[in-house]
């Protein structure tokens, strides 16, 4: 068990070295959430769809979750890229547990999202969003961002192992992001949705992630509650990791 986590952190460690070697990616990733908050948010704040709650307060956690989703859901492309190079073959021929390889990569996707969280916090502060600065809340946000990106990056890895080529992967990736985003409570509350969309939204892990982030960041209580949010994300990540570990070796055949 200790060895398993050691190996996991080795994989994550070197992925993280690679991320920070070229920080341009992190900066370009920050453009999208900035646009949502500074353009979309500035218009929608005027229609008060969230009642007494300020719309920017409502949407900032949603935008953080959305950027986490967008970064993580394309993680599979890196898996296909490594397969094309030959790195995957080499990793699989070492005595490293498959699950450690998959979890290590997923954790590094989580780390990739931490600078994004910092940028969203900064922008939200500039826009006057009232945010909870307690260490407990910040730690909770950090944990949820990592957990959320583990879920979506592992999901992405599974897709990559099934479709196997970059072209097909890009198609499937595009196909999934918008529905996951729209069928969530990121930019409008659950209560405003038609019943069919509410039903979909309630089985979408992104909704639970946003629910937790919203409560932790701004103190706006959501319909699900923190314990359920973390439970759903944890169970999703475990299930996907188990599946991903079984499928990972398929990417090379």
């Amino acid at each position, binding site marked *: 068990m200790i060895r398993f986590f050691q190996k996991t952190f080795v994989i994550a460690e070197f992925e993280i070295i690679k991320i920070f070697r*070229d920080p341009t990616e992190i900066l370009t990733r920050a453009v999208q959430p900035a646009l949502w908050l500074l353009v979309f948010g500035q218009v929608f704040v005027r229609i008060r769809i969230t009642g007494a709650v300020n719309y920017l307060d409502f949407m900032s956690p949603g935008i953080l979750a959305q950027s986490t989703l967008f970064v993580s859901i394309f993680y599979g492309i890196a898996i296909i890229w490594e397969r*094309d190079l030959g790195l995957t073959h080499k990793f699989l021929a070492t005595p490293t547990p498959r699950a450690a390889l998959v979890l290590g990569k997923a954790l590094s996707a989580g780390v990739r999202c931490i600078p994004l969280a910092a940028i969203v916090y900064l922008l939200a502060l500039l826009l006057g969003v009232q945010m909870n600065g307690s260490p407990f809340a910040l730690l909770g946000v950090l944990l949820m961002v990592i957990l959320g990106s583990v879920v979506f990056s592992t999901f992405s890895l599974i897709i990559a192992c099934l479709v196997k080529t970059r072209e097909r992967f890009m198609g499937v990736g595009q196909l999934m992001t918008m529905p996951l985003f729209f069928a969530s409570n990121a930019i409008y509350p659950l209560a405003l949705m038609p019943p069919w969309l509410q039903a979909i939204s309630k089985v979408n892990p992104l909704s639970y992630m946003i629910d937790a982030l919203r409560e932790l960041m701004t103190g706006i209580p959501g319909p699900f509650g923190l314990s359920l949010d973390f439970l759903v994300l944890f169970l999703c990540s475990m299930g996907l990791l188990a599946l991903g570990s079984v499928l990972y070796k398929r990417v090379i055949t």
Partner: protein
Amino acid sequence: MQNAIVGKPILETHDLTRKYGEFVAVDHLNIAVAAGEIFALLGPNGAGKTTAIKMLTTLLPATSGDATIAGFSITHDPSNVRASIGYVPQLISVDGTLTGYENLLLFAKLYGLPRVERKTRIAESLEFMGLTEAAHKSVHDYSGGMIRRLEIAQSMMHRPALLFLDEPTVGLDPIARNLVWEHIVELQKTFGTTILLTTHLMEEADELCDRVAFLSRGKLSVVGTPQELKNSLGDPNATLEDVFIHYATESLDADTRSTYRTIKQTRNMAARIG
């Protein structure tokens, strides 16, 4: 020309077979490799060399049959097999974003080398492969020959009993190629590492391998020392290339397993390191 070997076998296959649907890529392969020898699997594209190596390195499950490496079965004990082998795939297996040193450190940790030994092992491996000066340069700035030597360094740090090299000199110019070969021979002499490799260059196989096996359509055609195989043709001037042609029963277009994707990968890789 016997499959029998002198000394203790490090690798033995028993009717090792892999099918893709109806297509039999490796067909009841029986070979034995003695500890400490340099052994080559030769044959035309699509003969089953890479499929055989993928099964032996536990990347691909066998359809039937089995093999043992250092006494461990590839089907029943794959994680002990993985700990006993080193593997340099045909494609690139070092990370261009990391330095040479970091690439070695990553694998030293994955192979679980004790912390106190890591530094000396890495330094030794770099020294051995002539990469000490380039250790802290990004692998993006390495030449093709340096990349190959780094990959071999990476695969030998944990002192594997058996090292698999799949086309180690593909895409290299003659100077880089000779240097890689010198290091492979040196590796075998210094550490007694058994080496199993594939190549398309018969001259190389002739000069450097203790024994070679020819595969054709997934089946073992013949195995022996290069000298034995040349003599067997009855022509005193026969080369290993003549042996190759003699045993290659594939027609030119039978290479159906080399799909567009694998060809693209091989060429991309040759372009990248060449």
